[in-house]
C-alpha cells in the first residue's frame, strides 16, 4: 500500500469496471498489491466446469518485473506444479511492462486451453501427457471434479 503507483490504481479500476469474461480478479481489502483471482476452466478443456483460485502479487518493481501468480487450487496440468507454480514465459523472461494483470490472466486461461507438455514444469504430468494423452486428459478432468468444482465433497 506504500504510495501505491498510479499504474496499479488504474489497472485495478479497470479490472473492476470491465472484468474479463471467465476471470474474476479482486484486490485484497487490506493489500492493494495482492489480488484474489478466480479463473473458470475454459470450455472444451479438461478443466471445463472447474473454478480455479489463484493468487497474484504485484511486486515492488511491478511493472518493471512480472506479477507473481500461483494456483491455489490443485490442478493436473503439465505446466503447473503441485505447489501451483506456473511455467509461462511471460511471467519470466518474456515479461514486458506493457503487459498487465489482465493480459497475464488471459494468458493463464489460454494455457489451460492449450497445455504444453514440451515445456513442462510438472515432469510426471508432462510425461503422462505425452505417453497417453487421453488418460492425462481424463486425470485432469477428474482432478477438476475433485478439487475445482464448488461444493464437491473433496
Amino acid at each position, binding site marked *: *500500500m506504500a504510495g501505491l503507483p498510479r499504474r496499479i490504481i488504474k489497472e485495478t479500476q479497470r479490472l473492476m469496471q470491465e472484468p474479463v469474461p471467465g476471470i474474476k480478479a479482486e484486490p485484497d481489502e*487490506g493489500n*492493494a498489491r495482492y489480488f484474489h483471482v478466480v479463473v473458470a476452466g475454459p470450455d472444451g478443456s479438461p478443466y471445463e466446469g472447474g473454478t480455479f483460485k489463484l493468487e497474484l502479487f504485484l511486486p515492488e518493481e511491478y511493472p518493471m518485473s512480472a506479477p507473481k501468480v500461483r494456483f491455489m487450487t*490443485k490442478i493436473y496440468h503439465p505446466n503447473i506444479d503441485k*505447489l501451483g*507454480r506456473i511455467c509461462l514465459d511471460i511471467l519470466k523472461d518474456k515479461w514486458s511492462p*506493457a503487459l498487465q494483470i489482465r*493480459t497475464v490472466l488471459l494468458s493463464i486461461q489460454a494455457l489451460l486451453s492449450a497445455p504444453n507438455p514440451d515445456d513442462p514444469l510438472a515432469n510426471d504430468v508432462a510425461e503422462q501427457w505425452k505417453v497417453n494423452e487421453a488418460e492425462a486428459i481424463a486425470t485432469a478432468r477428474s482432478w477438476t471434479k475433485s478439487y475445482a468444482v464448488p461444493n464437491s465433497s*473433496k
Partner: protein
Amino acid sequence: MIILVWLSVITLQSSSFQRLLSRIYTLTMGACLCKDTPRGSQGHPVEISDSVDNPSRRQVPLGHIVTEPLNHLDIIESLILNTMYNIKTLVDNDRALPHSLLAIHKIADTESGWLLVVSSLVKVIPLEDPLGPATITLLLDECPLPSKGTIAKITSNLKIGKKTALDERKSKNIQRQRNTCIVLGCLAEKMAGPNSTCLMTGNVLDYLFTNLESDCDPIVILHSIVALEKFAQTSENKSTISQALDQMVPNPLETLEAWGGVNGQLDTRREVTFCAQWTLDNLFVPTGRNFTYKSMDHSGKNVILNCNDVSENLKIAPSGLEARCDASSFESVRCTFQANTGVWYYEVMVITPGVMQIGWATKNSKFLNYEGNGIGDDEYSLAYDGCRQLIWYNAKCEHHSHPCWKPGDILGLLLDLDKQEIIFSLNGNCLPAYNQVFAHARSGFFAAASFMSFQQCEFNFGMKPFRYPPKVAFKKFNDYGSLTDEEKLILPRHMRLALLRQVTVKEDSCTICFDKQDTVMLLPCDHTGFCMDCAMQLEVCPLCRTNIEQRKQVVVRTNSVKILNKDDGVHGTESEETKPGMKSAKTEDEKIQICMTDVESSTDAHSALEATSTHTESS
C-alpha cells in the same frame, strides 16, 4: 550425493523457501536460491538462475537422501526440530544444507504424510525458541497445498473445537494451543479463498474465540487473533467473524485492547493489545468504532514511521512509532526524516526476540518483501539482527559479539556521517564501527527496519529521552523533523485504500507508470507512450521487444510527431540523458490523444507485442 542434494535444493524453488533461506544462507546460498530476484535488484549474482526452467533438473529423486522408512512419527518430529535448529545456526555454514527440510517436503507429498507433518509441528515446536513460529510458517509454506478433504481431516485430527480449547487451557498445554493457532493462521493465509472458508468451520471458530478469553495465556490469545486476521483475508470469513464478534457482549477484542491501559508492561500482553487494536481499527470494525487514530495525541511528535514508505503488510501503530509484522513476508519501513550530514542517533525497544534487521537505509534501498530482501540486503543499507547476532550489509552477514536480544532490550543506532561510520549498541554496550554502506551512499539516510513474521518493536526518534544516549555529541530526528497534522495520521487500511482509489489518471500519461507525461519515442522502433523515467529503465521496447538504441524526447502535435532534435536521423547526437524539460513547449491545445493514452489500448494483447517494429500510428 552432495551434488544430488544441491540440485534438489535448487529445484525446490518455492519463494517462501527462498525467502527464509535467503535470510539464512545469503552468504553462500543466496546466489543459488534467488532466481526470482527481479531485474534491477542489486547484489545477488545469479549462478544457476535458469535451473527452474530446466526440466531435467526438477525431478531429482529425493529418495536418495531419505533412506529411513518414511512416515514414522519420531523421524518427522526430529526432522522438524532439525530444520528449526538449522534455520538458526546455519547462517554462514558453507555447504551444510537442511536435509531435514527436503525430507519433510517429500513426506508431505502424500495426504497421510502431510497430516503427520502438521500434527508433529503442533506437537514439537517449542514455545521458547524465537524461530519456532517462523519454522511452522516455513515448513507449511513449503508443503503441498492440502485438498478440501485433507482440510477436514486435519481439523478433526487436531480435535479443534471449544472443548479442546478449554481442556488444553486447563492442562496448560500452551505450546500445543499456540502451535495449533499458528498452523490454522498459516493455512488460512495459504489457502485464502474458498478453501479457507472450508477450513473455518464452526469448531475452528469456537476454538479461536474460546482462546480470546482473558484467562487464556496471552501467547495463545495473540496467535488466535492473528489466525482470525488471516482467515479474514477471505471476505466471506471476514463477515462471518465480524458478525460473530458483534454478537458477543462484550466484544472480546475490545476487552483485550483495554489491556493496553496498564502501561509499561513488556510481556506478550503488549503484543495482544497491539493486534487487538489493529484488527478493531482495520478488519473487524465494530459499529460506532472510535478509531484509534482519531484520539491519538501527536503533540511534540515530529518524526514517525512513514506510512507511504513501507511494504504493504507491515502494521504501523496509530502512534506511528511502533510496528509489527504478522505476514509470512519480510516487511520493511523507513522513517519520515532524512539525515544528510552530522551525527544522528535513535533507539529501538525490542518487543519480540525474533528476526528483525534494524538500521539505516537510503531511499535507494528496495523493500522486496516477497523475495525476503529488506534492510541490510542491498548496498544502500546496513542493519543489526539481534536474534541471529549478525550485521547485514548487501545481503551478506557477519557475526557480532552481542548476546541475543530479548524483549525490553534497547538497540541504539548511531550514524556519524562526518566520520562515515555506524555504531550499534545493545543496552548501551557498543559494537565496533561499521562503514561498508558508505561505499555506495554518503548521505540521505533514514532510520529503517525489516521484520520477519510475528515481530514487533518500538522506535524512539528523540521525542522521549533516550535510555542509552551516546557519549559523543549527536542530533535527534525529532528536533529537526516536522510533520503536518495530516502527515501524522496513520489511517486504517480501508480508509487509505479508499483515498487511493479516488486518484485519477491523466489522458496523456506514460503507458507504463501512468504517472508522468508520455514524452519519449524509442528508436529505432519509433514506439511512443513512455515517460523518460520509465524509458530509462527499459532495455527493449515493451511493445515490440526491439533493442532500444535511443530515447528521444518528442512533442506530440495534431498531425505529426515532431522530434525536437533536428538531427533526427543522426544517431548519438541525442544522448539518453535528454532532460524532460524540453516538453515545456507543449501546451494543452497542442496535445492529441495518441492511440496509447491507455495501457489497455496500447497493449490489449499480444497482438501489440507480436507486431513488428514498423509501427506507424503516430507518424
